[in-house]
């Protein structure tokens, strides 16, 4: 039998495209986790809010696309700040499970808000990415997926630079590595907490716009967040490199499962993978293995 390598190549490219978006959202997740040790199950819903705000400005108010993108990013940041201040800050010092449940509740609230304002019907975002078909060698890549990949790659690179060189980014890493030490060096830790949520909200908004541009938006697109959860567990909750590798890998696995087994196997493949990871290496590929002491 002649194996169709070109088909595999095309599928893999599409998978990498989705994977880059997983990696981007995973980055938002890891930013929050590193700084505040909060597992944010509502990341998918924050992404959704970003996409809907963009939709409201671009389609509802008919503003130019670049302005709408800026507005959505600002809205994402404001949402992050608001959530941190009203829900996460009061839970400081509570058990991680309680905080996790707060984010579950937050997800529910955000879904309800979107359905209340925009109804549950799926919508299409206005077209703003160029639409000419793109070929890499012989393989066809959907232009939206291609540009999505580019946006995600650029943004990830920018974020890495920010974490590396910007004062706020350094403060964030310092807080992540040792909270008490960061405090005593004069870093305003509560502000770093806010900052991490704001940054994550902004990243999520951008990811939401790209995801929405590719697949349309609806009140159930928060499901995307569950796959991102698998991504970050695969890579290790507190590892940026892990989120990147994990995102691309999960994107590939999902695309392969969808192409060779059938669409309904996508979710199954991802979650079976998750169970395997948890059994073999629960702290992920690059995560820190925490040793518990009495």
């Amino acid at each position, binding site marked *: 039998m002649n194996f169709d390598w070109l088909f595999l190549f095309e599928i893999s490219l599409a998978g990498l495209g989705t994977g880059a978006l997983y990696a981007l959202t995973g980055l938002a997740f890891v930013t929050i986790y590193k700084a505040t040790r909060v597992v944010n199950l509502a990341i998918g819903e924050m992404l959704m809010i970003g996409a809907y705000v963009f939709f409201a400005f671009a389609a509802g108010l008919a503003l130019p696309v670049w302005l709408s993108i800026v507005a959505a990013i600002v809205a994402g940041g404001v949402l992050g700040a608001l959530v941190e201040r009203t829900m996460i800050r009061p839970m400081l010092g509570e058990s*991680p499970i309680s905080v996790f449940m707060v984010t579950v*509740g*937050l997800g529910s609230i955000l879904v*309800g808000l979107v359905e209340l304002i925009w109804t549950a019907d799926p919508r299409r975002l206005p077209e703003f990415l160029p639409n000419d078909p793109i070929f890499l060698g012989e393989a066809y890549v959907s232009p939206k997926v291609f540009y999505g990949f580019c946006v995600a790659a650029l943004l990830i690179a920018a974020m890495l630079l920010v974490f590396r060189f910007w004062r706020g980014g350094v403060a964030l890493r310092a807080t992540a590595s040792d909270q008490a030490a960061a405090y005593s060096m004069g870093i305003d830790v509560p502000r770093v907490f806010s900052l991490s949520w704001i940054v994550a909200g902004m990243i999520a908004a951008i990811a939401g716009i790209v995801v929405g541009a590719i697949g349309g938006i609806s009140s159930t697109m928060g499901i995307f967040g569950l796959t991102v*959860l698998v991504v970050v567990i695969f890579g290790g909750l507190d590892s940026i490199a892990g989120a990147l590798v994990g995102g691309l890998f999960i994107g590939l696995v999902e695309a392969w499962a969808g192409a060779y087994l059938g669409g309904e196997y996508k979710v199954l493949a991802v979650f079976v993978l*998750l169970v395997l990871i*948890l059994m073999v290496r*629960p702290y992920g590929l690059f995560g820190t293995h925490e040793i518990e002491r009495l």
Partner: protein
Amino acid sequence: MRIGLARPDYAADEALIDSPTQWAWVGLLFAALAAFPFVANEYWLYLACLVGIHVVSATGLNILTGYTGLVSLGQAAFMGMGAYTVAVLQARWGTPPLLNLVAAGVVAMTGGLVVGIPSLRVKGLYLAIATIAASFIAHFVFANWNAVTGGTAGLTVAPASFLGVTLDTSFRIYWLIVPLTVAMVVGAANLFRTRIGRAFIAIRDRDISAEVLGIPLLRYKLLSFAVSSFYAGVAGGLWAYFFRVVTPESFPLILSIFYLAAIIVGGMGTILGAILGAAFMAMVPELLKLVVDWLPLGANATLVLSPVRTIVFGALIVGFLIFEPNGLAEIWRRIRRFFHLYPFRT
């Protein structure tokens, strides 16, 4: 004005019901439960049955999450296993309902044991996420194992019949659901007077210390999973008899979150909490319906209802966790204390 009780021995100290006053209240409660179907209308009976099912499942989750400290978001999947067991047994062999319900519990229990195996390796959030995976995998099996589960169309269930009576109305099935609910709640309450229950609590408080004290962690964690999913399976079986149709969409992830929310709102790690929480969370949508109908929204009312319900649902979880982390059970205790100590202030 009952300030305290003299408890002469350990048996009295451990008793579930510790005073004649409490016996009187419990008697009154049972009388009310028995009289309820004769005074309530169809709508209230429907709600009572639904609350009964929710109470069984929430109590099960409370054993696992509230008492053993293992967070699970797979309760709905275990319920689904139970519901499908009942549906298949009823349709193929027509075995008696009580046997079917026990079988439902056992099948779910087996599922719970399998899901519980990673619990020695991972815990806390990782475990919660593993159970999310379990619930997606279970959904896939329900939707694609056509030969047994009937695929996405699901299965219809014939009404249960008990001693020649067909339980096809809310009034009739009430007599199956409520006694079973009471029995299972009492069973759960008694569990925590035994060695096993105490071991669960020790694991919740600090699992490493518990192991040092000679509690085999894997065995007791698996046991907790087993008991909890047995409850879920029975609840799922009751669900199947009550709604008489089972589809893969009957048991979504959101239902698992519903049960977790119920025990948070009610109060984790208390028997009363699961009851209050399940009843409260089942009533909230009905209350909202009243409120939304009452607001001058006109034709929009039905359109607004579902999103508002989702928002209130989330807000309840967040609100209780921030302002009343011990839940309704704590409020209940406070009220009781007020009357016990009257005229003194607490």
